[in-house]
């Protein structure tokens, strides 16, 4: 099944539309933006679960200037047979925590602060810790993300930073 703006279940789409309210400030919400470069095929977990995972990824490490596709890459490995049980149980736990706080489910909560409160309720779980720890490399070790943070990475190929600004600070 494809997860994209046309491929979502109605419920997930609705949920996403609400959640996208918080994400819309980034200009990168994939529902509203018709040119969204993001699409993902899921085969083991459900599209709704993948949407929840993506929302969770963004709520754990929110960078408003980072487009959805980087978060998608960071979590797409969970669409796998050996991860299915963890993800299904984890999202059920997340939605249960959302219900306990008076929401329909996690992904339909409009404000990031409210979703964060739900995440805090499950923060100690293996599920949360697995997703969070995986994102540290899954998100920040994508080379394409580095320029968004200004990080230039290796310089050996250009002979080092010696002639490329290692001491060019001019505001001190």
């Amino acid at each position, binding site marked *: 099944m494809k997860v994209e703006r046309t491929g979502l279940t109605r419920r997930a789409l609705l949920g996403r539309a609400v959640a996208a309210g918080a994400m819309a400030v980034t200009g990168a919400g994939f529902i509203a933006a018709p040119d969204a470069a993001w699409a993902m095929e899921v085969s083991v977990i459900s599209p709704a679960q993948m949407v929840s995972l993506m929302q969770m990824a963004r709520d754990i490490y929110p960078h408003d*200037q980072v487009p959805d596709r980087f978060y998608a890459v960071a979590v797409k490995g969970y669409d796998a047979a050996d991860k299915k049980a963890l993800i299904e149980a984890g999202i059920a736990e997340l939605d249960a925590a959302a219900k306990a706080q008076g929401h329909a489910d996690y992904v339909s909560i409009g404000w990031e602060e409210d979703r964060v409160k739900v995440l805090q309720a499950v923060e100690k779980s293996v599920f949360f810790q697995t997703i*969070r720890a995986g994102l540290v490399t899954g998100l920040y070790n994508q080379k394409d993300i580095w320029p968004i943070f*200004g990080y230039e990475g*290796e*310089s*050996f190929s250009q002979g*080092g*930073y010696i002639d490329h600004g*290692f001491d060019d*600070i001019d505001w001190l």
Partner: protein
Amino acid sequence: MATFDLNDDSVVVIIGTGAGGGVLANELAQKGVKVVALEAGGRYLPADYVNDEWDSFAQLAWLDTRTTSGDWRVARDFSGLPAWIVKAVGGTTTHWAGASIRFQDHEWKALSTYGAVDGANLLDWPIDGAEMAPWYDKAEAKLGVTRTGDRPGLPGSNNYKVFEKGAKALGYKDVHTGRMAINSVEADGRMACHQTGFCFQGCKWGAKWSTAYTDIPAGEATGNLEVRDRSHVARILHNDAGKVTGVEYFDAQGNLQLQKARIVAVAGNSFESPRLLLNSASSLFPDGLANSSGMVGKNYMRHTTGSVYAIFDKPVRMWRGTTMAGIVQDEARHDPSRGFVGGYELETLSLGLPFMAAFLNPGGWGRGFTTALDHYENMAGLWIVGEDMPQLGNGVTLSDAKDQHGLPVANVHFDDHPNDIAMRNHAYKQGIAMYEAVGATRAFPTPPYPSTHNLGTNRMSERPEDGVVNKWGQSHDIANLFVSDGSQFTTGGAENPTLTIVALAIRQADHIAGEMSRGMI
């Protein structure tokens, strides 16, 4: 390149080829002593190093199982990774940043200088600054340390310039781009530093000293040194007279081999060296080799560390250039009026974005965390390194877990001493004040990383009952068994340890060669 027979019992076997083992191997080979160096890791040279933090970590880091316990945060955040050290020919000198400073005279005599400290197992070294001075001279010449001899200092990077301005604003005087084992000019057939960054990932220019491409090939060129890589020593063997006779090791194919030896020198870093001595227990030595004092694996020190990162309203781009060329030494003095004994250094440090995400606040998440990374380009950073207290309860024991060879692994236990905490808090405050003095808008007192400085687990002592080795690194119990790495440290001083490890190894080589020719061992 020499090859020696497994049954050749005239060789010195050295276990590990890092700062201690690599230097000892070359120094002995230069004196005509036959050496077999066994190294658990593979061989990588500058052309192989990868300027990418995680890829390099996968290439070089020691990733065999280890376990942790104690109240240090590393046990929670990185429970399987108590130390960030290397498994490769060259050991952790491939990773190291190159900061090379001498102990201060009083630091050789911590117990006499500081007096007894509750809960600490302080002891004076059986050697002092005057005795070590000529060996430090040799070590500095070997490493090509900047600002020693006639070697010029390195130029200051962006990260250094912010650091220096803040330090001077606070009134610090002893501030410079460090004494670094990094060529500021071409020397010893190695290039000058190109400011590429990634000093922690192996220097692709060879500008930074590492035994991997200096001492090891120099030793091999004499025809007296054979280095066997991917050779993991499992056990040190001895005879009924209590002399060591050789080692058993797993070769690259996983087959168990036995190399005979006249002398064995252990240099596997402060986790693996005591682990090996403990794993070599026998009916004659039921508590492990060289352990009549019970001190093998005890008194583990990792330096009081921590980092301060700060954000400014304008770019710093700290990742450009050397990783650690910058130091404030004013706080290195012993001045108990600050609320702790011993002192600390502040040194510039930068991490790339991937490592910053992993280490800035391990386990942290949400906007408090991500807004820090959002300003990564505007960040400056420094590292704290100070003297920590040796404690009997801190150290290496054999874990229930086993490695790929079926050998019990090291469990590393560490609890902070109150002196460590007081020192760290003082250093955080000073580091933050430095950056605020240059206009930082936000600062982060970042917790210690998995240990990079590992010391003390086979400590040197005057009396056999206080430690594992004597003033030559020779075990008190077994005359032909030596310890040659950072585990010999009686106390840690405030200084990065490697220059001292190297000076001790050069001195030990002199002693071993002398004792061999006198027929004493």
